[in-house]
């Protein structure tokens, strides 16, 4: 399983753009990169998923370089409500079972 490494914590201020980078040096050809967000006392929530280049949705953008050994989650103009833990995961779509390993995540604190 591809292991991911991401910063333990980050601080930001309201209105700023936040970029969280995740490294996954051993990513396999069939692996996708997925980000989840978790608020206290809630289960994780899917944010975005990508395979290569750039993916954008209404919540975030995901940048993946050509070698796919890292990825960057970009949150535009964060607000206090974006304070949460963000998890970067890699896994494939072809096999069943335990292909998601969450790790410790990045605790984002957004300050006023």
């Amino acid at each position, binding site marked *: 399983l591809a292991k991911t490494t991401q910063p333990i914590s980050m601080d930001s201020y309201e209105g700023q753009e936040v970029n969280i980078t995740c490294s996954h040096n051993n990513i396999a050809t069939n*692996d*996708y990169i*997925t980000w989840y967000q978790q608020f206290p*006392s*809630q*289960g*994780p*929530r*899917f944010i975005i*998923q990508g395979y290569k280049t750039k993916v954008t949705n209404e919540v975030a953008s995901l940048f993946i370089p050509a070698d796919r050994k890292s990825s960057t989650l970009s949150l535009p103009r964060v607000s206090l409500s974006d304070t949460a*833990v963000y*998890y970067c*995961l*890699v*896994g*494939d*779509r*072809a*096999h*069943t*079972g*335990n*292909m*998601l*390993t*969450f*790790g*410790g*995540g990045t605790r984002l604190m957004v300050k006023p």
Partner: protein
Amino acid sequence: GAGVSQSPRYKVAKRGQDVALRCDPISGHVSLFWYQQALGQGPEFLTYFQNEAQLDKSGLPSDRFFAERPEGSVSTLKIQRTQQEDSAVYLCASSLARTGAAYEQYFGPGTRLTVT
């Protein structure tokens, strides 16, 4: 629409007691996952069902943990003879996809188990 629900939301058990945690996945979702989340840590995989079949139980920490999904919908995670190290949040997730945990998983709010 209705999301994944779990009950109870909080459970306090005395050491040695048996507990049963329920998960109601989104209707029609084929895949169901159970995770254990210790305080300050990320979720850790416990077991996976595809419909009623338990295809992966490699994450269950001991034979005191047992999960079932007899009709391919509701699932129950049972912990026998609870120990203090079982204290954690137990999360259930479901997915429409038949294969591949990388497909979007929808998580419930979790059950916080405290063993005293």
